[in-house]
C-alpha cells in the first residue's frame, strides 16, 4: 500500500521535473516566435499570445537590415571555415592515427593542451597580426584563426580508430599512393563522421561572436549574429524587429538539428567516445 503511494509520488516527481524542464527549455523558442508577431511594447509587457504585427516587423527588419548581404556574409564565413577546418582536421586526425610515432604522440598531446588556451588571451595579438597583414574588416581574418582546431582533430582521430585497416591494405596492394587512399577511400568511408563534424563546426562558425565583433567593423562585412546584437543594444530596441532577426538566425541551426539529429548529437559527443 505505502509502496504504491511511494511509487505514485515518485512518478509524479519524475514527470513533474521532466515536464517543467522541458517546458522551460522550449518556452523561449515559443516566446521568440510569438514575439515576432507582436509590437515592441507588447513584447516588453510580457504578452505571450500571437499578435498582428508580423508583417510590420518583417518589413521593418528588411528595411533596417540588408538581410541578403548579412546572411550571405554569415553563410560565406561559416561554409569557408567549416570546409577548411574539416579538410585540415581530418588530414591530421588520419595522420595521427595511421602513421604513429613516438614524436607525433608527444606532439599530439601537446596539441590537445591548446584546448585550454582561452580566446581572450589570443585576441589582442591576433588583432594586431590581422592589422599588420591588412586583413581587418575582411572575412579571411574571421576564418583564419578558427581553422586549426585541436578539438576537431581529436574528433577525427577518435573516429579514425574505426576505419578498417583492411581497406588501407587492399588499396596499397592496388598501388594507391597515401594521398589517394585518403581522398578516395577514407573520405567516402568516413562520410558520416564528416557530416557530424560539419554540423558542429558550421554551427560554431555561424554563431561565432567575439572575434567577428572585433574584426568586422563596417556594415558591409557584418554577420547576422553581429546585426542582432547591435539591433538589441540600441537605446530603444524594437523588440519586434529583434525577434524577427533571432528567428531567422536560429532557423538554419534548428532545421539542421531536426533533420540530422543523430549526426548532430554524434558530433557533439565526438570527444568522449
Amino acid at each position, binding site marked *: 500500500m505505502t509502496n504504491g503511494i511511494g511509487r505514485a509520488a515518485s512518478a509524479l516527481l519524475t514527470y513533474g*521535473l*521532466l515536464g517543467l*524542464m*522541458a517546458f*522551460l*527549455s522550449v518556452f*523561449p*523558442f515559443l*516566446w521568440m516566435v510569438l*514575439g515576432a508577431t507582436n509590437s515592441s511594447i507588447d513584447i*516588453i*509587457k*510580457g504578452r505571450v499570445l500571437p499578435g498582428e504585427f508580423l508583417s510590420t516587423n518583417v518589413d521593418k527588419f528588411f528595411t533596417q537590415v540588408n538581410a541578403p548581404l548579412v546572411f550571405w556574409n554569415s553563410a560565406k564565413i561559416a561554409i569557408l571555415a567549416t570546409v577548411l577546418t574539416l579538410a*585540415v582536421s581530418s*588530414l*591530421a586526425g*588520419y595522420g*595521427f592515427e*595511421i*602513421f*604513429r*610515432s*613516438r614524436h607525433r604522440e608527444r606532439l599530439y598531446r601537446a596539441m590537445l593542451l*591548446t*584546448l*585550454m*588556451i*582561452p*580566446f*581572450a*588571451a*589570443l*585576441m*589582442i*595579438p591576433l*588583432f*594586431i597580426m590581422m592589422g599588420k597583414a591588412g586583413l581587418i574588416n575582411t572575412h579571411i581574418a574571421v576564418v583564419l584563426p578558427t*581553422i*586549426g582546431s*585541436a578539438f576537431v582533430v581529436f574528433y577525427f582521430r577518435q573516429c579514425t580508430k574505426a576505419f578498417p585497416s583492411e581497406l588501407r591494405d587492399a588499396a596499397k596492394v592496388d598501388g594507391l599512393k*597515401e594521398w589517394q587512399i585518403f581522398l578516395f577511400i577514407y573520405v567516402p568511408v568516413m562520410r558520416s563522421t564528416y557530416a557530424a563534424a560539419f554540423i558542429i563546426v558550421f554551427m560554431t562558425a555561424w*554563431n561565432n*561572436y*567575439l572575434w567577428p565583433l*572585433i574584426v568586422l567593423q563596417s556594415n558591409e562585412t557584418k554577420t547576422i*549574429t553581429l546585426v*542582432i*546584437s547591435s539591433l*538589441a*543594444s540600441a537605446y530603444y530596441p524594437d523588440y519586434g524587429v*529583434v525577434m524577427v532577426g533571432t528567428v531567422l538566425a*536560429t532557423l538554419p*541551426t*534548428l532545421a*539542421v*538539428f531536426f533533420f540530422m*539529429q543523430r549526426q548532430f548529437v554524434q558530433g*557533439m*559527443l565526438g570527444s*568522449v567516445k
Partner: protein
Amino acid sequence: MVHARRGSIGRYYDVNGWLFVAPVLGLIGLFMIYPIVWSLWMSFQSGRGMMMKFAGFANIVRLWNDPVFIKALTNTMTYFVVQVPIMIVLALILASILNNPRIVGRGLFRTAIFLPCVTSLVAYSVLFKGMFAPDGVVNSTLATLGVISSPIPWLTHPFWAKVLVIIAITWRWTGYNMIFYLAALQNIDRSIYEVARIDGVPAWARFTHITIPLLKPVILFTTVISTIGTLQLFDEVYNLTEGRGGPSNATLTLSLYIYNLTFRFMPNFGYAATVSYVIVVLVALLAFFQFFAARERDK
C-alpha cells in the same frame, strides 16, 4: 621489406605522417602558440596603442590596485562556483531519469531539454533580456503565481543581474551536459541497476553509489569544459548589458574587461594581456586541481 612493417608503432621518420599533420600544426602554431607567447611578452609591457615599452611587473602590481579588475575576477569566480555545480547536478539528475527506458516520451523530453544548445549565445541572450524586462513575461508570470509582489529588477540590481546571467547560462548548457551523461550511461549495463533495485537500494543511493562513480571520467571532462567556458564568459554578459557589464560592473567578466580595455577605452594592450593571463593561469590551475581531485578520490 620496409612496407611489410607498416602499421606498427615506432616509425619515427615516415614523411607521410608529418605531411598529414603539418597543416593543422602550422595553423595552431601561427594562430595559437605564437599569439599566446606574444601575449605573455606583452603583459610585461606598458603604453598606449602600439607605443609599448618594457615595464617589468608593473602590470601585475596594477592588477591588485585595480578595483574593476578585482570586481571582474570576483564576478567570474562567482559564476563559476555557483553555476557549474548547479548545472552539472541538474544535468546528471535529468540524464539518470531519462536513461530509464520505462519513462514515457523520453525521446521527446530529451529533444526538448537539448534544444537550447542550437541557439547562438547572442540570440538567446537577447531573448532573455526581453523575457526578463521589468514588466516582461517572467516577472508577470511570477506575479500571477503569487511568488513575488513587486517586479524583480533583473537587469538593474547587482544581485539579480548576476542571478539572471546564471539562469541564462544554465538554460543554455544543461542539455548539452546531459547528452554527454546519457551517452556514457548507455555504456553501463542496466542490470546493475536492476540488481540494486531488487536488493532494495533506494533511487537516491543508486544515483550516488552507481551512477556518479561510473560517470566520473565524463563528469570530469564536462567540468573542465564548463570551467574553461565559464572563465571565458563574454557573449551573454555583453548582450544582456549592452556591453557594459552593468549595473555598475556587477556582471562584468574578465573577458569583457579585456575587451573594454582593448577596444573601448584607450587601448592598453600590455595591461589587457596581463588580465588575459589571469584567465590562462586560472584555467590551468582549476583543470589541474580537478584532475588531481579526481585521481585522489580513486585511491
